[in-house]
């Protein structure tokens, strides 16, 4: 494997690792907190919101936005590290 090829493989592996972590969070806040564990979380109340209901109609959306911006930051750093930035 050439040097260039090795670099590309390492970059891709790290990228896929980031994707797994971020998509795990994506799954937990929406399908987890907003759907599967909604009833359990509803026992907790923050202000007028039952927590599970809040995740389903508000919280998950905020987390989605944050996730994309975290991804943008991580990837910009990774691009720089491997010299793929332009």
């Amino acid at each position, binding site marked *: 494997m050439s040097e260039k090829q090795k670099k590309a493989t390492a970059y891709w592996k790290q990228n896929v690792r980031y994707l797994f972590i971020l*998509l795990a969070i994506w799954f937990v806040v929406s399908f987890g907190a907003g759907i*599967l564990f909604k009833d359990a979380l509803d026992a907790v109340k923050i202000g007028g919101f039952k927590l599970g209901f809040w995740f389903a*109609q508000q919280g998950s959306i905020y987390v989605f936005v944050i996730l*994309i911006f975290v991804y943008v930051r991580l990837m910009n750093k990774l691009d720089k590290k491997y010299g793929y*930035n332009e």
Partner: protein
Amino acid sequence: MSVQTWTYILVGLTFALYIGIAIYSRAGSTKDFYVAGGGVSPLANGMATAADWMSAASFISMAGIISFAGYDGSVYLMGWTGGYVLLALLLAPYLRKFGKFTVPDFIGDRYYSKTARIVAVICALIVSFTYVAGQMRGVGVVFSRFLQVDINTGVIIGMVIVLFYAVLGGMKGITYTQVAQYCVLIFAFMVPAIFISIQMTGNPIPQLGMGSTLNDGSGTFLLDKLDGLSTELGFNEYTNGSKSLTDIFAITLALMVGTAGLPHVIVRFFTVKKVKDARKSAGLALLLIAILYTTAPAVAVFAKTNLINTVSNENYSNMPVWFKNWEETGLLTFDDKNADGKIQYVADKDKNELTIDNDIMVLANPEIADLPAWVIALVAAGGLAAALSTAAGLLLVISASVSHDLVKKVFNPNISDKAELWVARGAATVAVGIAGYFGINPPGFVAAVVALAFGLAAASFFPAIVLGIFYKKMNKEGAISGMVVGIILMLFYMTKFKFGWFGGGTEADWWFGISPEGFGSIAMIANFIVAIIVLQFTPEPPVDVQEIVENIRIPSGAGEATGH
């Protein structure tokens, strides 16, 4: 000034603005026409994507649907935003690096096959046409209610406007008008929401107002109050749904994956300069969308509480003016079954006397809350901005599918750039005509077919694109059979349970208890499985295709989008 005068002024001003932008940024080449010359900034693209995505359904219908569905409405909130995470992480950067004009371009090249390209074109056309018909109808509804013109005249006015700037400006004209339309629609959505939030809870931020206590000195939380009112009238508790857990899960997944697979959204990411910009602009798009999507559930709660308080058990003769106005449109009907002159709004179908169309909740909300005339007019302008921006984006996908994917790539590869541009304009014109026809004569199954559009996108494009990027060895046989099985399965299930074909069926016959709306997730999984099984028995893709995949995984050197 009256509501009507205000509406004429605001709608007139916004339309003049859109046309001005279209003339200023008209397209000179196919590249301008398909991908706006490829030089759109991430923020402008984010705003354009947000306007493109938020249709008449998001602006006019969604809050109303949530109002009546309560917790069950969460599927739309999570589904239509969570898809952007998939889009940003799994699709947009790689498709931008690939650097072509359309989604069928990617499918056709990555799977080295004309068949794959044609399957993709057919899917893109079905998805986009069903969508655009709904938008035209939305334009008609707004015109007929707020400008007192006939609904069909409304559709025709909308057609002329869209035709003008989509045909003249192509993607370039559309992008910059969408930027303006985003500003109009978000302002129009937020102003009444903030007014009502202050009125009901004293909190100017609707997202927080929704979880605050009522302003009436009782100290009751708004959501508790609404839960109480709902159960009193025999409905489910607002914060608890009636759909099964499996179905909620399946619908949310299908909407997320469908969102990520919609061609008119994906194609927006071909318009930015670099891979880096594609990622960033996906984030900005979702941020801008989230402003509306986190406000909508608050509007739903305010509107529902207001509505129940205004109508429940009140005398029909005491109803405010807005009630009569909406009765005239037929979107609100009162049938005094027990002839006591009072309005019974209850869950029991035999006793309920009030039927309310979902769409009223946002459009009538400012009137119900007694807001000034200019706010009511603003909502009309916002609804039009939402419908027009989405219609224009869809029309572009349709015209590009015909002129680029069919005429240029399949029938006549030697066509000149100039001739292709004229074919694209011609195709857009024909598409506007067809969309307008469906807007004026809406087939009874529009609503059903819009859900089908998401299911189709989920069952066809998403797996093919994701496998194309993340599974280097995926070959054309696998991808094509996956797409075909996915679409056919989805079409079969939808037509069986929505139109009663193939023996029909009721809720009890649903597979795994999943509704047709949620079945896209099953069809998508079937697509993945079939593709991977077929792959085991068919030859690997050629080396040069595997090199394309290696190449799109590296963000640098994206160059400019090209059709050649």
